[in-house]
């Protein structure tokens, strides 16, 4: 096939070798750098018995003590839980729960006695717990207006009648629909989350052995995140410093009994910066959750915060949960550095640590039994 093949004829192509000055013209020669030649100094971790075994032992040795520490800490946390849903006929709240719906305005009170077997020494955190309440439903989570809650006065303005103007003037965000406005008046706070706010009132009484019933002081501040209370949530600042005046022209959420500016008497805990409200607005991750309700501060160093004995929980039953087969609980818990009581993490650490340790031992045995037979595997180390 000579005819169709041509030669890239450089008769003197071979002269390059001896040709003087040829080297200066070599411009295409790749740079001989470690990166371009893929010769960067590299560390090659080889998973051999020599490297893997210590890793297992180290994991085991670190995890087991951590696990024990966590487990002990968790066990030291005292926790008391009482269910007051009232779907059981024997429950004191049965009557309240039976015929209750969102429309009831008159609150129903029930009292539940309970007994603490141990004294609670440090600060006690009082939670309410809800079950089967999907605060994490996508539409529910969205149904809020952060800008309104951040004190943006425009989000409280009356929606203008003409659509042109309404676009310009901010109303409660459309995410709040259908809980954004009633009769063209904006709802404050708008949205489904606010609308479904937990509104049972819980009170605790200590039944003295001598018969008197002493109310236990419950602190309602300090239960929300500091950043929420001071940055994210702000009351709107209008021309008037009076909250009632600022919220003039808005309506309360449908399910609420009181408007937002009457949530508390303390002006630092009223309106949007009411901590019960803030806590509720931080939507729970899972359908069974608890939310911090009150803190029982330790009075002095001598007496326990909650001594052993009989107590009474008085509930203003406002919040219906039977419709969705939910449950309501009241939880008293002390707290440690790891939060509330949870044995899982401790057990998990202990288990994983033990498994690793065990694996390490097994591997060591295998390695000793079979590794010696062809010792060459050790050369690689």
């Amino acid at each position, binding site marked *: 096939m000579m005819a169709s093949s041509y030669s890239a004829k450089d008769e003197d192509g071979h*002269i390059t070798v001896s040709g003087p000055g040829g080297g200066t013209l070599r411009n295409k020669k790749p740079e001989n750098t470690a990166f371009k030649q893929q010769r960067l100094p590299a560390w090659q971790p080889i998973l051999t018995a020599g490297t893997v075994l210590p890793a297992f032992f180290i994991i085991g040795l670190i995890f087991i003590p951590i696990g024990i520490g966590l487990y002990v800490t968790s066990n030291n946390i005292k926790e008391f839980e009482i269910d007051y849903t009232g779907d059981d006929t024997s429950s004191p709240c049965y009557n309240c729960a039976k015929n209750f719906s969102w429309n009831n305005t008159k609150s129903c009170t029930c009292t539940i006695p309970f007994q603490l077997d141990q004294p609670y020494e440090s600060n006690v955190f009082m939670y309410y717990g809800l079950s089967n309440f999907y605060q994490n439903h996508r539409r529910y989570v969205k149904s809020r207006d952060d800008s309104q809650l951040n004190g943006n006065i425009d989000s409280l303005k009356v929606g203008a009648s003409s659509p042109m103007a309404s676009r310009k003037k901010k109303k409660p965000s459309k995410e709040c629909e259908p809980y954004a406005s009633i009769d063209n008046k904006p709802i404050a706070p708008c949205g489904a989350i606010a609308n479904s706010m937990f509104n049972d009132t819980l009170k605790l009484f200590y039944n003295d052995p001598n018969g008197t019933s002493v109310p236990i002081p419950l602190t309602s501040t300090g239960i929300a995140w500091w950043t929420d209370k001071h940055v994210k949530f702000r009351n709107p600042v209008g021309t008037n410093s009076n909250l009632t005046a600022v919220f003039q022209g808005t309506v309360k959420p449908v399910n609420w009994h009181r408007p937002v500016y009457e949530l508390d008497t303390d002006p630092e805990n009223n309106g949007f910066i009411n901590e019960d409200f803030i806590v509720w607005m931080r939507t729970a991750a899972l359908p069974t959750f608890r939310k911090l309700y009150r803190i029982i501060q330790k009075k002095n160093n001598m007496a326990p915060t909650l001594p052993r004995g009989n107590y009474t929980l008085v509930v203003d039953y406002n919040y219906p949960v039977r419709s969705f087969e939910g449950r309501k609980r009241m939880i008293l818990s002390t707290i440690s550095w790891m939060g509330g009581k949870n044995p899982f993490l401790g057990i998990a650490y202990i288990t994983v640590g033990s498994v690793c340790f065990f694996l390490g031992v097994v591997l060591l045995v295998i390695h000793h039994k079979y590794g010696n037979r062809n010792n060459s595997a050790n050369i690689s180390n």
Partner: protein
Amino acid sequence: MTWRSPLALVRDALRGQRARENELRSLESNLPYEGLEKGKQPNRYFPSNAIKTTKYSLLFFIPMNLYEQFHRLANLYFVGLVILNFIPEVNAFQPEIALIPICVILSLTAMKDAWEDFRRYQSDRKLNNMPCFIYSRKEKQFVERHWKDVRVGDFVKVVCNEIIPADLLLLYTSDPNGVCHIETANLDGETNLKQRTAHPEFEPESFNGILVCEKPNNNLNHFKGYVEKPDKQKVGAGIESLLLRGCTVRNTDHAVGFVVYAGRETKSMLNNSGPRYKRSKLERRLNIDVLFCVILLFTMCLIGALGHYLWLNAMPVVPPYLVPPTSGQLDRPSLTSFYMFFTMIILLQILIPISLYVSIELVKIGQIFFITNDIDLYDEETDSRIQCKALNITEDLGQIEYIFSDKTGTLTENKMVFRRCSIMGTEYPHKENAINLLIKETEVVPDGKLFQKISRTSSGSLSHSQKTDAYLDFFLALAICNTVVVSMATTKRRRVSRHRTFTEDSEENFQPSGQTEGVDTTGLQPCSPHPPSLSDEPALTSDNLRYEAESPDEAALVYAAKAYGFTLLSRTPDSVSVRLPSGEVLDFEVLDTLTFDSNRKRMSVLVRHPITKEYVLYTKGADFAIMELLGTPYPGNGNKKNIATVTQRHLDCYAKEGLRTLCIAKKVQNHTLSYLPNAMAAIENRERLVMDTAVQLEKNLTLLGATGIEDRLQENVPDTIQALREAGIKVWVLTGDKPETAVNIGYACGLLEDEDLVINMGCKDKITCTNILDCTLEEVRRYNADPRNVDTTQNMSLVIDGLTLDKALSPDLLDRFVALVKHCRAVLCCRVTPLQKSRVVKVIREKLKVMTLAVGDGANDVNMIQAADIGIGISGQEGMQAVMASDFAISHFKHLKKLLLVHGHWCYTRLANMIIYFFYKNVAYVNLLFWYQFFCGFSATAMIDYWLMIFFNLFFTSVPPIMFGLMDKDISAEMLLGVPELYKTGQGEGDYRFTTFWVSILDAFYQSLVCFFVPYFVYQDSDIDMFTFGTPMNTSALFIILMHLSIEIKSWTVVHWIIMLGSVALYFIVTLAYSAVCVTCNPPSNPYWILQSQMEDPMFYLICILSTVVALLPRYRVCHSLSSVGLKIFNCPEFWGSRQCYFSLMLPFS
């Protein structure tokens, strides 16, 4: 501008269309019409010389680019998701946010396209504005214009070293012989000069003929046309008088041509096809797996929708957390679930790894960067790197199972060295040439005996003795019978490359060494003892001559003749002058040259002897092509009959030595020529007429002798073949040479070994062929069935010739042939045509379903290169056609070893591992969201802020896999080269297997379960809020995904550390900044201060550590046991065959 009716415009457009589509075109000169408006121009229908290679215009860039981009399925998927997000019932996120990924990807691609297009525009503009000379009738001279002003029908002047602006019919040159030399390096990379002949008797001013030519086509070596003069006389014109656009004029002061094709119709533009696009095997597999991901996605979405339906149905009344749509009425559960299906698709969209495609492109660019920058694949001699022409099949290099190689120029150097010759039945072995291995083809050391004989004969001057001598004839034939162009080394060839330097250097460098060598080794006087008085030009010293041949064989023969004193001094189309050893210069009149073609396998030159005035035909060609044409034996020789037989014996002997053989013959022509120059004018039958003439002339030849030219093996060819074979690659050699030569080269390069069983298949008819196939197959079967041969494999090799191959590849024998070939370790196909080569490749590729690689250097390998999965061109002596058609171009066969064993292996494992990792990564991350659906009523809630989710994929975890795909080294280069068996991991199914994919998907499921449920159990029944719940998950997912990669990474360099640690740092910095700044910026999700508060909590760290450890424990464990198993395998001597191998394996580790 006169008004023209639309109808006329349409008519004109149609006429133009017809004129362009017509098989034959008639062109006339523009000169008589100069200055007239466009509508009156005769050649107005043909495109102007301005070229436009840009894809887009400024105005329509955005719509056109978008149209282009939406051809990709992946982009459509993205847009579909965005549209879904704008439907209020379905949307999962803020619709505006959902636009971000698609916008980022589209704009990145658009920017890349725009930049590329701008580059094209710039180069177009530069090209269009190049200066050139066009004849103007007004000014009666050539005036300077731009390339874009050149139109069909113009007369253009080109001067020396200038690039030709359009395809020109050469009408006039400054050369007295009417010759113009051009260099076609820009077109096909060939650097030799090509001769073009001016069409005679034309002056630009008086050119009044009509040029009829064929429709534009892309064949660079073919042009048909004729000029019809006003007196109806037709003058033919062929490719030999066409100057092609893009070529450079050399050695000619100036030339004038008539523009035949301009702009996009020129042959060079028609040859300009875009970059080659091949889809790699891995990519085909990848698409299947993407399909699996789509199925997985749909399953998950179905589960979500169904779960949502059941969840809704289980509810007795509407709970307070169920938010009705704006209308206030809840939709029916079935409808809501239907919507939920689409919402789920949006939520889980990243399960389809769209970013994977972008990453693969990036990784391949990087891999090509590394391959082209490999210093081991750089050739000092030609200053060339490896060229990667196909950008997306790098990983196929790691999966090759069959290599089809050309012989000449691929295994051998294609630097021809004259080794032996046989004249009139006497053999001259040229021992010195055989000893001196470093010899160049330009210096041939003459054989002592032969040289003396020549000197004796020529001492009695040839011109006086009428008796011709066979020895003289032999060397005259060598010097004359070729198409070698002589150029002076002193002639300025202004070229950008280093070429010029060498031509100038060659004089002082090579003259002395060449001569001393000649004196030392032969002990004879210098080869060219001519008296200077006879030479007219003092520049014509023999060492100044450079021969430019179309094939290296020709040059080798001319150099050989020169060594014996027969120096070819010059060649024009009409004459050849040769200086004899006596110093006499003979000028032969060339009457005709019958060029070489593959059918005749020979070439002839008909000359008129200046002294005897005889017409002499010198022919050279393949032995079988000459032997059958022999007629009268040489006069005045005793043992007449024996010459042919003796020569044939010598030829066989040469072939056994692996030499390329040629027969030289002559014939004295007495009768008048039947050759008609008029025939040349016939546009249709020219080739046939030339052929007929050749048949008439080439008969009754007289055999003069034969030559043997050595084509030496390239460096390290046996090593390379050995390594490739150890790597499990079967090497086939497909060559046009005869079986003896091929077998010889086969032994020389280690393809065949002495103990091998070589099956020689050569049969004339189909029945024998069938029998041989059946017998061999039966034998193989019996051998394999024999219990004694269980462990030993018989090394079987097959040698088959073209004719037999044709029969074996016929449909009924094909299966048997393939079955036999499967057992063969090596196959040599001899005497095969280019078409057969590609046929063989296709058959093996399709029948055995294997990855094939074809490597070749010549135009005859182009078919094969294109048929194989990977085509490799060797940029060697035989021009650039193979290189142009190839996917990769290397300069030596030995480079294949590193290219395949190292780069192929790396590219493949890197890409395969990266792709698997990508799938794993996306599945692991998306599943976190999926598991959460079980706890949020399947309402498509994401517990991770959407921005952080985007960032997670876009910034935090995108760079490490790309780095993994670029830089990971599972095995070091030294070991890959030392233990070629390691290449086998990539063959067949390779690393990227069905099981590997599913194992990693399962692992992803497991890891996501751990990553989700550890925080879940920790935070169960606590006051945790949604985004706080998501934060430790997101963080531990980052750690798991990165640590998983760390387990996969086999070698860590500084870059690895920086990128891995940088990714983690970036995650914390960006997330902390984002959650510190964003108070109400992204409603409804609100990440404000969450990570900060989490990082104050020790539980956060405990959770992250626990989930990371538990998630990665199985993989770590499995990896460990796998690698220890691997070590055991390496230890096992039976497995690798030798103990040595183990140590070489361990070397890089220690």
